[in-house]
């Protein structure tokens, strides 16, 4: 067990981890952060997406010990100060159904629009192409993102 520390949703946290512990399990089971989900455990589905140092990554493919000293943001952190315009647009359009893919997908879009505030439809699709959703057919999500990022 090694003591590591990292910033989780803006708060410096300390925790003991073993090298064989995955980041996803540590966040969920040891730190109570439940929005990253497990959907395949092999990097295919994107449900476990978190933002690490500003970039979306698969927390199921990262050992917790790797994030010592780094910065992690999950959907809990994004929602801390109320819903963002993106979340509001998704909500108002009933974009999600079961909602299981939503945390990962919202983080993917968040990363995109930070880099590129007015993305094209293709750029939106590309940004969430690694977040599998079986319910929505993606279109309501894409439409909501287009709406919230269009130039006024």
């Amino acid at each position: 067990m090694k003591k590591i520390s990292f910033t989780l949703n803006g708060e410096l946290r300390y925790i003991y981890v073993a090298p064989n512990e995955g980041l996803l399990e540590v966040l969920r089971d040891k730190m109570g952060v439940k929005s990253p989900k497990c959907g395949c455990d092999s990097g295919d589905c994107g449900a476990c997406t978190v933002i690490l140092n500003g970039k979306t990554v698969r927390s199921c493919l990262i050992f917790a010990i790797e994030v010592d000293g780094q910065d992690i943001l999950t959907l809990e952190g994004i929602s801390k100060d109320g819903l963002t315009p993106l979340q509001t647009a998704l909500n108002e359009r009933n974009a999600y159904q079961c909602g299981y893919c939503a945390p990962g997908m919202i983080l993917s879009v968040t990363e995109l629009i930070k880099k590129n505030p007015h993305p094209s439809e293709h750029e939106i699709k590309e940004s969430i192409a690694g977040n599998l959703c079986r319910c929505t057919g993606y279109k309501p999500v894409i439409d909501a993102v287009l709406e919230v990022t269009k130039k006024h």
Partner: protein
Amino acid sequence: MEEYKFIGKSAIRVDGKEKVSGAALYTDDLEFGPDLLYAEIVEGPHAHAMILSIDTSEAEKVPEVLAVVTGKDFPYNFGLYMKDRFIFAQDRVRFFGEQIAAVVARTPQAAKKAAKLVKVSYAPLPKVLSPIDAVKKNADLIHPDLENYEHVPWFFPKPKSNIAHHRKIRKGNVDQGFKDADYVLEDTYEVPRYSHCAIEYHAAVAKYDHSGRLTVWASSQSPHTQRNLFANALAPLGLKHNDVRVIAPHVGGGFGSKAGVTMEIIAAAVAMKVQGHPVKVLWNREREFYNTYQRLGVVAKLKIGVKKDGRITALHHELFWDAGAYVEYGANVVNAVGLSAIGPYKVENASIDSYCIYTNLPPGGPYRGFGYSEFLFGLESHMDRIAKHLGIDPIEIRRRNAIKEGDLTAYGAHMNPNGLLQAIDAVEKEIKWSEKLKSSNPDIAIGKGFSLFWKAPAMPPNASSSCFLKMNEDASINLLVSGMDLGQGFLTVMAQIAAEILSVPTSKIRTENPDTDRNPYEWQTVASHITWGCGNAVKKAAIDARDQIFDLIARTNFLPKDMLYLEDEKVKCKSDPSFELALRDFVINGIQMEDGTFKGGPIIGRGSFMPEYTSTNANPETSQGGHPNVHYTVGAAAAIIEIDKQTGKVKVKKIVEAVDCGKALNPSLVDGQIVGGIMQGISTVLYEDMKFDHRGKMLNPNFTDYKIPTALDVPDEIIPIIIEVAQPDGPFGARGMGEHTMIPVAPMIANAIDNALGIRIKTMPITAEKICLEILKKEKE
């Protein structure tokens, strides 16, 4: 048309904020404290084998292991429609990966380690991996005890065979019908197995406490049915129904996979052996593929006779279903199709044989569409081919044969009011059917395809729903139902129904996923019946509450009850416009009279609904005489596709789909079902390709090689169209439409491919590879 304030409005989902904020909790997200135990499953590495011995001694020695259980601990049959299933394999395994034993330990790591140490010896048996082999003479029997299994009265198993059920339709004079035909087309279509691919795994946590209470938290479409099956299966251990409590948090996608009971019973049973501790059973992606339900495969032989003008004179549909190792649920898919495999057509002379066949593959079970996607692939391909042969427009041939209200279904009941013709017209117009499309690129072929669809809920005749409606001090409402919001928006729509009756805005109605201790009975959230069935129960509960309100006001304010109405959370009176009383002023605390006494009491509405006209009593040789289905939902769809002739890749340019949902209680949610269903349909026809090896082992149980579409695979344009021909017994005229939306997609794409290339593909999936190899074959010829 009646004006509604809440019905027909695109209300925001009641669970919307939870879901976009990350607050929504699913089963595996719940906390059970430091005493939580973890179970790991031991799986059989044979598709068919006798279990000779199981040695758990080494596993038991692993530190932190509390229990190792096997089939011997639970020698009980269970199942929804037929009790052919076991909690753990008994004397034999019947599919590759079937559960043999479970290890319960303090940590998942210890459970995993120990599970590897359970030694099982097997005597392999000949395996049957296709339904056609399974019905051959002298085929090895997968369930030698079939005749002893309990089952519902509308199943007809054939003892000493692999046929678990045979649904037979005989209507009119089929021989004469084929004789009268000017053209008869006969062919075989094959649709393989598919996987639901909900992104959330199956998950169940169970705790059997020291007072004898069994609580199960499960990702479930069927909390009450699960309670019923747990209580029945575990009754020998002393459980009664009221000892069992199922709590269902948010579900991360179902599509049928979380209906009935599959792995959840492992949690329930194992918990009985480690009394006092909560035990978690969490599936993984691989098991999601090979050890839950899969969609059944089918080989469908179809023969249709028509007159020159395209009118159907006779239809014979023979369906051989690959139902897998256990058919306790899947047999009802076979039954449903047996009743409906004429499609949405008026067919005077029809015969259908739908065979539920055991194979040594994973258990087949409910999947969005419940068999209708499978048989309509052949039927709607067939209709196009017939139209082509006769030189009739593919839409026109369907219009000529379309079933209308009052026409007789295959089992002789009257067809419900429906908007099939309106749907056909709407789709034809929106897709600009008559417009000829030509590709400017010689490597790209363009095609258009069309398909109709229909589906009825497949339910026991007495499937029922109920609702409690509790009013709170501020006139907000807790609506207690036991349907599940799987993402379709059920809870939102139930709130809208109560809102409409009680004039309380949807935002003041809290309705959540159920706990069987607190929420009243619901059969299951399947069959696209829940808006209709539970919606009726909610409407009744709201009316019941309203009646109580009006009774009280009539009694205390001496106003004529039939003059009272609700508006903006107030009681008002048509005959006394000066009267108004806010609900919040009395729905809990009653109304104070002049003498200081109070009248009334908390307003609690109660509603229950069961269709009282359905019956499965029918002649088993013909299926005539009963009324097994409540109603059909119908619709039409069309697509424009582009095919890269060198690679076989299909790009879906545009899809239009019209569905008659009776009344769209929430159009935004209806659109959501249409778009999502279309995408799932596209996925099954173009991408998903389940592979098994010679051992019956699934080779691609992962998203790396079982491809479900990404955002980059979305069609350029999807146009949902809502048709509203009211369902007379539906809440505000509504009928279900959730499953239906994916049903037309596969034949529609197959038809578009034929239209583009002149190549008819009769087996699914229709991958780029398959199209490309067919193009190459055609070029050679």
